[in-house]
């Protein structure tokens, strides 16, 4: 049985890491990172079958995760470090010269946990589909997970991959959509309406699970449902409702903190709302 309180406490530290990471170089994407802090925490501390100390690019014998919306790298880096992929103190190098923690994730700097670069949107689902096919060829029963922004679904390649995964019956793949309804230029409905997302994924032949990405218990239940649906000839999509900026009051309810770092005064206000639960790096 998962310890919800413990996971919530980790997620709070992840949020604190995120704000500290973008504040130091005065650069990065706090909004989506905060919104997905619970997702990353649940995935890496509860859901994934993985062995951080034995990370391999090929991921054989383990679950694999691909972050398609690479700009929310701060939350991913934090969870990777705190789950043991690399030392927590390295988080202080985010976006600085000579760092393995590039603005957008890349395997080019050999940071454990990262297999393919992302940042240019729309590519991660295709990559994950390929990795899932390889698992089938290898007789590896582990799963492949992805995360996508909802705005990212405006990219055509996503729908090529959605069609491909269903047609090729890639049923060891769980794709999660960070459904926060916001993107750089404003609400997703105004920038480019996604229409009925659930109906779209269903029409393409996927299973769909809906969950609340900022409620740890509901999130774990969503993952459990999704996992149960794998292996039945269809890929699985989790439509995960989140609040961009979750955990820092002035970053919530707006799209304005998508890609902006807080100034010193804003930083202090955020820190006051995010207690240090695991110890700062």
């Amino acid at each position: 049985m998962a310890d919800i309180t413990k996971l919530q406490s980790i997620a709070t530290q992840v949020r604190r890491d995120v704000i500290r990471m973008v504040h130091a170089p005065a650069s990065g994407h706090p909004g989506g990172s905060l919104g997905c802090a619970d997702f990353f925490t649940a995935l890496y501390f509860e859901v994934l079958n993985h062995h951080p100390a034995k990370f391999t690019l090929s991921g054989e014998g383990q679950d694999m995760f691909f972050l398609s919306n690479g700009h929310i790298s701060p939350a991913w880096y934090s969870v990777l470090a705190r789950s043991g992929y690399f030392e927590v103190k390295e988080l202080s190098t985010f976006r600085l010269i000579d760092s393995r923690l590039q603005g957008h994730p890349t395997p080019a700097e050999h940071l454990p946990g990262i297999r393919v670069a992302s940042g240019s949107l729309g590519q991660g689902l295709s990559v994950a589909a390929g990795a899932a096919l390889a698992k089938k060829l290898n007789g590896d029963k582990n799963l492949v997970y992805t995360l996508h922004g909802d705005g990212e679904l405006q990219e055509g390649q996503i729908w090529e991959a959605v069609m491909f995964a269903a047609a090729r019956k890639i049923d060891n793949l769980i794709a999660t959509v960070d459904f926060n309804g916001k993107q750089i230029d404003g609400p997703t409905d105004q920038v480019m309406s996604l229409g009925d997302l659930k109906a779209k994924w269903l029409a393409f032949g996927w299973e769909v699970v809906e969950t609340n990405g900022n409620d740890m218990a509901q999130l774990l239940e969503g993952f459990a449902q999704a996992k149960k649906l794998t292996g039945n000839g269809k890929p699985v999509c989790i439509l995960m409702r989140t609040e961009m900026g979750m955990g820092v009051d002035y970053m919530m309810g707006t799209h304005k903190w998508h890609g902006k770092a807080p100034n010193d005064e804003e930083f202090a206000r955020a820190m006051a709302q995010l207690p240090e639960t695991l110890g700062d790096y």
Partner: protein
Amino acid sequence: MKKFVSLGNKDTRSGFGAGLYELGKTNPNVVALCADLIGSLKMDDFIKEHPERFFQAGIAEANMIGVSAGLAVSGKIPFAGTFAAFATGRVYDQIRQSVAYSNTNVKIAASHAGLTLGEDGATHQMMEDLGLMKMLPNMTVINPCDYNQTKAATIAAAAWNGPVYLRFGRPVVPIFIPEDQEFVIGKALQLTEGTDVTIFATGHLVWKALQAAEVLEQKGISAEVINIHTIKPLDEEAILRSVSKTRAVVTAEEHFMNGGLGDSVAQVLARKLPTPLEMVAVNDTFGESGTPEQLMVKYGLDTPNIVEAVQKVMARK
């Protein structure tokens, strides 16, 4: 001067198909993908023997490149095949991020490259692919010249660790490279020895360069023909060795002058051994419908064009 004779005629894409078939038997990690062009890419034999190792991507090239990257990360050696136009320009960003920057072991198999695609016209006649691909860090770029070399290059590409762009063509052309000729990625292949001029040729233009050398011999000009099958990494040593002897250069390729082989050779020479150089290539214009032969004549990629370029560069020595 060493004379080359045609051992028969075949398309280079069939060389790719034969190489892939061979790899299917010898390397269990090799898989193939195609965007609705199985017949054109000559993948049928591989698919027949290994249906479980082939993935039809449909007319969705961007996804095909991404899926290939995912397969490669997981230890497979994917060959992703389509026409050169759709294998490069259409999916440049996918190749840039998921293949080149991520350094995934993806082999991009690009058929119907250049003008000799023929009647389909300019939409499909890719003449900037070598340039697009050679600009990407981590990318190896190979443009073989006949059936045998394409087969050998395909097998060599699978053994090479890292992204490879493998370019070949549609038309039936002479086979003149011996079947047992070793193919070493990044190592130029000297075909004739000469003292007056070096002709660096790639792809379909290699045969024409050999023909031009014979014409030039009759005019008393000794041409050294070197086949640059690997555009990147470029064999600078072979280029400098030959040019320091001949002190005159012609490059020949079925590609735009901008970004092609000539461009790469000129860059090396400008930095290390400034030498008069002429380029046989398409000069900043799209192609059109026509037979491959008509197009090669109209766009200046034929044997007489190489002879003329040699005479021009000799006059500048």
